[in-house]
């Protein structure tokens, strides 16, 4: 017998952000024994930071149609979006959002009492026509309102929470299926094997691989690291969204909703430069388009500030009332982090790493996939994923604002429904050998047993983030990427000989940071290798040396394995309730 304590559940959900909580709610409400593991208390998850809104074609302000939302999603994703998945998401969106309202989410309201909706970048009516109000919002605190509501409903449904437990690694069954995870109780240092019929990864993003990011400190890509180490692939990791309006230097986000309410960007000459780059949608163009425009302004010497290193977001013309009612959180952030009151002065902003389009590949039921040697999809028995950690792929090469919160609830819900059905039909409890559990503790044991005098984890972390920032940012190019990739591989080797000094068992956050660094490094390597490999420009992946989209060679998903092996998956073109959107040049 292994000395490791085992706890058994029908389902273990790793992650208590929007995706994990939505999945757990579905399962707990149908009476299954679910455990939710989260490295922070649920309401401290990153979803709490989401500001602007969640999209759904409710048509509360103007006529709207989920098919228009579907078109925008596919077009905005530069035709790398799987059309069956985007169809499912956009079609279910109105129902998923109304369910949130029924749960109690305090949406802002229109005069007639319906849910308030605002415009957001890339959302149009009539297949690329005029901007449409599709983002359902609770002021500019939509993520906070959503996360708290979902947590509260899980309390009511009596979900088992393991808060401040850190998932370490995947445990495989005798047949190679996923049988659960090992996890560490942060408060006591105890390690436990959480065994389950199904394991759901809802571990969120990994923006902390970059120096400048809007992401929380806990966004370290743990789910992806665990999957890669278990021999499973990640998909489309070259596609990272840079948000046009991160507060310069601080990184905190100013929601696109600020432009949705009528704000716009200026260069140092006071020119509203987006009119030049995108005459139709202007400041409400897709994020990759606006971020590139801002970077070009800065590179060509029209950036604002003493160092010319940012642009300006003007809001004062919106008036006190709009700012107080619709953007109160933005005003707070801007005063605190930029020292600027947007009622009076423009906010200094710069394109900042924001969102990971890639992740663990899944089908539309949320079941994780791998690709076999003859390039066929194979389901990974026992493993599911949802939210930012997953790549189902509804965001393709560039995500539309407000489509992530939607992704969380639609596919969190889908995983819940799938598992409810599968459990009803009977999912076996996997059989596990002790050696498999021990295997999933090797990594934490290495850190625990590391001896003084090894490499310094913080030095490695800083170097990694700098490489990602400099060589894999908004614009990319072969030589820089190859040298960046080589440096990362060296750092990865250094990390295997790094030292954890603090060996306490009690609330050892130094140990957690080391374990997170392993995951960050795996994600950085996947990103760098995938980016260097894709020789075209598409969506958020923009190269100086291959400036055009190349459908002939690159209209496919990148699938990356930790041993630097690549495979590819075709883009799905089989929606069932709507005409397929044929491959075409991306409309502005």
């Amino acid at each position, binding site marked *: 017998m292994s000395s490791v304590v085992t706890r058994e559940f029908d389902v273990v959900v790793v992650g208590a952000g929007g995706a994990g909580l939505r999945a757990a709610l579905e399962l707990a409400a149908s009476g299954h024994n679910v455990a939710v593991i989260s490295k922070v208390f649920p309401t401290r998850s990153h979803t*709490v930071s989401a500001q602007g809104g969640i999209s759904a074609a409710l048509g509360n302000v103007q006529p709207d149609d989920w098919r228009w939302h579907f078109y925008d999603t596919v077009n905005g994703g530069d035709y790398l979006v799987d059309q069956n998945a985007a169809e499912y998401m956009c079609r279910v969106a109105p129902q998923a959002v109304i369910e949130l309202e029924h749960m109690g989410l305090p949406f802002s309201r229109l005069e007639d009492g319906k849910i308030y909706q605002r415009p957001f970048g890339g959302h149009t009516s009539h297949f690329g026509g005029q901007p449409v109000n599709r983002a359902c919002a609770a002021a500019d605190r939509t993520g906070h309102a959503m996360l708290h509501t979902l947590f509260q409903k899980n309390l009511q449904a009596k979900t088992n929470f393991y808060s401040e437990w850190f998932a370490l690694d995947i445990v495989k069954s005798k047949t190679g299926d996923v049988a659960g995870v090992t996890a560490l109780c942060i408060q006591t240092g105890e390690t436990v094997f959480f065994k389950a019929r199904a394991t759901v990864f809802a571990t969120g993003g990994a923006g902390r691989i970059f120096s400048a990011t809007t992401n929380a400190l806990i966004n370290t890509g743990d789910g992806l690291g665990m999957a890669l180490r278990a021999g499973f692939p990640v998909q489309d990791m070259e596609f990272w969204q840079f948000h046009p309006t991160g507060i310069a230097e601080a990184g905190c986000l100013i929601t696109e909703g600020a432009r949705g309410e009528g704000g716009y960007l200026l260069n140092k000459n006071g020119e509203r430069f987006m009119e030049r780059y995108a005459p139709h949608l202007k400041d409400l163009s897709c994020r990759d388009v606006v971020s590139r425009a801002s970077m070009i302004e800065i590179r060509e010497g029209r950036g604002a500030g003493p160092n010319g290193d940012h642009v300006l977001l003007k809001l004062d013309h919106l008036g006190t009332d709009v700012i107080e009612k619709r953007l109160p959180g933005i005003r707070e952030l801007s005063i605190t982090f930029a020292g600027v009151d947007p009622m009076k002065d423009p906010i200094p902003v710069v394109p900042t790493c924001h969102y990971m389009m890639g992740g663990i590949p899944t089908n539309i039921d949320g079941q994780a996939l791998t690709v076999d040697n003859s390039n066929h999809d194979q389901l990974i028995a026992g493993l599911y994923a949802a939210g930012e950690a997953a790549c189902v792929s509804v965001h393709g090469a560039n995500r539309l604002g407000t489509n992530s919160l939607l992704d969380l609830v639609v596919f969190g819900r889908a995983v819940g429904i799938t598992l409810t059905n599968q459990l009803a039909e009977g999912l076996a409890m996997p059989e596990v050998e002790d050696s498999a559990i021990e295997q999933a503790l090797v990594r934490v044991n290495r850190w625990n047993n590391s001896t003084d005098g090894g490499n310094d984890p913080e030095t490695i972390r800083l170097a990694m983030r700098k490489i990602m920032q400099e060589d894999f940012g908004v614009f990319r190019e072969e030589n820089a990427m190859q040298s960046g990739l080589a440096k990362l591989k060296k750092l990865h080797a250094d990390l295997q000989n790094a030292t954890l000094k603090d060996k306490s068992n009690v609330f050892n956050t130094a140990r957690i940071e080391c374990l997170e660094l392993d995951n960050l490094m795996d994600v950085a390597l996947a990103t760098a290798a995938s980016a260097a490999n894709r020789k075209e420009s598409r969506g958020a992946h923009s190269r100086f040396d291959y400036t055009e989209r190349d459908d002939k060679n690159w209209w496919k998903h990148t699938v990356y394995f930790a041993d630097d092996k690549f495979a590819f998956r075709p883009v799905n073109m089989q929606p069932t309730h709507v005409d397929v959107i044929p491959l075409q040049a991306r409309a502005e």
Partner: protein
Amino acid sequence: MSENNIMQVEIYRFDPELDKKPRMQDYQVDLNKVPGKMLLDVMMYIKDHQDDTLTFRRSCREGVCGSDGVNINGKNGLACITQLVDLPKKVILRPLPALPVIRDLVVDMAQFYNQYEKTEPYLQNNEELPTKERLQSPEDRAKLDGLYECILCACCTTACPSFWWNPDKFLGPAALLQASRFIQDSRDTHTQERLEKLSDPFSLFRCQGIMNCVSVCPKGLNPTKAIGAIRNMMIALEA
């Protein structure tokens, strides 16, 4: 930047595996080397470059997740939105008062969460669900402003003398603010039951109106006012 920009930070330290009792430890930090301008940046700098055993919670680093409530020179606040320029050159950091210390600045929040859960903090409505959203007028929705934004940081509750004396019976300002968030929601049909559950001498009535909670809330919320509004509703109910 001035050449001598040293901040002296004295921090409460306690690791139950190593320390018999808590102690205070001094750190000298050259602010010119700290990236960022918040107190949390200084704490992270110490952890990253001087002493990796220093222990505290943090997540969002922008004042929205409620992880890093600490006691700063005697006053509770969030480290991540406490500006260095507003602090003196000597800073004393202690864990939030009134809750058991797990290690250093990390407190055991169980009691705080228990009190929150006692208020049944979820919408209750047994009417039939409409196929679309329930309607709510902007005026009714406005009643939730100042209530739903709470980030559960516990700065208020751990600054409240009534909670110090009766942490198991008095719900504390944060939980009462949540109670109010559902009592005020036009979509909740359990208003009366909610009010009745708060009518014992302790749950709510131990509030002395001292307003410590209001003065520390980093989100500018006003639990005292929310508690007052609940009281008024109870009086109206009895009348």
